[in-house]
């Protein structure tokens, strides 16, 4: 026959073991300290006193994982952002966005001609649910996820509406926060570009060949 309250004593042994263990084996028992996925496997010093002391690079890969996603950003390829912005304001993301938090207006020059870039690109991050659908449907690899999370603001209305100029981030920054993903995306873009160019080249060559042929034929004709 089991002793009286045996199960209770067993449970108490478990809690005692956890109590003592939380002082001895901190890493196992207090798993908020588990940063083993990081290169150095330790809690970044800057996080220790967050938010009293804000770390400089809280949003880069020292504190968040590779696939971490928070809110979208627009990519440009360096230099003056609006010159190299990849977005062409095609509005696919606006249509596909499940909570419909994206608002885009196309840009036109003085003559009313459509130039392939957005005049307005707003994301209401108070509505955005970080689902990354916009990234997936974008055919131009122009919109990707940022991992910046320090966005709190006292302004309820304008404060969380991120405008185009704040959304624009360079490809280098993208490489910094998501190295693997950015490399893959660049690779994909390069192959696509190469394919496109190859196609173009092929088309050009074909045209050239056709022209040569034509020329040859014409020459033949002339020779006749």
């Amino acid at each position, binding site marked *: 026959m089991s002793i*009286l309250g045996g199960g*209770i004593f067993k449970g*108490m042994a478990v809690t*005692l073991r*956890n*109590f003592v263990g939380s*002082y001895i084996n901190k890493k196992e028992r*207090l798993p908020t300290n588990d940063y083993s996925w990081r290169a150095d496997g330790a809690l970044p010093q800057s996080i220790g006193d967050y938010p009293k002391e804000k770390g400089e690079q809280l949003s880069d890969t020292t504190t968040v994982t590779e696939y971490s996603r928070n809110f979208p950003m627009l990519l440009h390829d360096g230099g003056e952002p609006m010159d190299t912005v990849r977005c062409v304001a095609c509005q696919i993301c606006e249509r596909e966005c499940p909570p419909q938090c994206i608002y885009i207006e196309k840009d036109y020059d003085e003559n009313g001609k459509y130039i392939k870039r957005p005049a307005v690109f707003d994301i209401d991050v108070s509505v955005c649910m970080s689902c990354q659908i916009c990234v997936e449907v974008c055919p131009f690899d122009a919109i990707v996820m940022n991992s910046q999370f320090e966005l709190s603001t006292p302004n309820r209305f304008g404060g969380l509406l991120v405008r185009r100029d704040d959304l624009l981030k360079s490809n280098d920054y993208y490489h910094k926060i998501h190295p693997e993903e950015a490399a893959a995306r660049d690779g994909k873009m390069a192959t696509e570009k190469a394919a496109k160019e190859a196609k173009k080249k092929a088309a050009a060559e074909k045209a050239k060949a056709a022209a040569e042929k034509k020329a040859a034929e014409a020459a033949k004709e002339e020779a006749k």
Partner: protein
Amino acid sequence: MSLELLIDILIATVPLMLIFATLFAFTTWLERKALARIQNRIGPNKVGIPCTRIGLFGLGQPAADGIKMIFKENIVPRGADRLFHLLAPILALIPSMLVLCFLPLDFPWLNEDSVKAFLLDGAVIFFFAITGLNTLAVFMAGWASRNKYSLLGGMRAVAQMVSYEIPLVLSAVIVVMMVGSLNAGEIAGVQTGGNWFVFSPWGFAAFVIFFIAALAETNRSPFDLPEAESEIIAGYFTEYSGFKFALFFLAEYIAMFAISGLAVTLFLGGGDGPGLAVAPWLSAVWFLAKIFGFIAVMIWLRGTLPRLRVDQLMGFAWKFMLPISILNIFVAGFAWHAEQLGNRYITVITWVISLAVLYGAACGLNQLNRGKVRPREYKYAE
């Protein structure tokens, strides 16, 4: 009124209240910290010295909590009985503070007269009489809040406290029987030199019963039904906020100290401990240390156990604790008479018999009450 008497009374009471109020603050910190560690958390660790970054393991937390409690809005629900809503926390605090006087705490600054003022002949019975008043405060709070959860909590509390008072008193009766006195100082005095009551079968049984009943009396887990969060929100103090809530909180912890102090007096030799011959002031230290032993076990239990259901709680009091404590009184009486004979063999035999009787009775009752409750086997489908 003679000034001397007044000063004596003040010397005896004011430090007592201050010490226990401080200990209360410390205990809230200790409980949060210990529970956090049991649950693999860190617990309060930020609040230390204001305006600096010194954390001091969060020892400033009770002070910060106190300040918050004082400045919080005092909300009285519409339709509540305003007078009783105000009186209930005060009525809860007074008895718990009052009974501290009956503990035989030998502080070095006490002189003969001030000690005598409190060491009444019937200290033990006074203790029980006055702790009984807590019931009324709880009921008052539950009724005055005009809230169904409060009312349920108040009803539960009253039923529980009244039921568990019986095994509590009956197990204390054993010690009173053995000593032949209701005087707390005398009871503690008999046990000096490690001759504690807990080191005998009936004493141990009484101690365990007393401890369990004390848990129920102070509404500690696993008997915290009156404030069962998952069922009736916060029970009788659902509608209390701010300082009134703080008073309830304080009263509850002081009651914990008081009942632990009584357990120490009755079963653990009061201020008895090594080194008393050299430094008599150690007596108070030992006493408080033993109280904290109790508090630690209470915290540990709170971190481990879920709570009983209301019918099981009452069943446990009436079907298990009461028969065992009544049986224990007989066993103790039998043992007392056997010890009067002064024969060592008879004493040993008495011990064995009483151990066997108590253990057998406990197992039998447990078996009876348990019914079909036991771990089960399960099948698997491939």
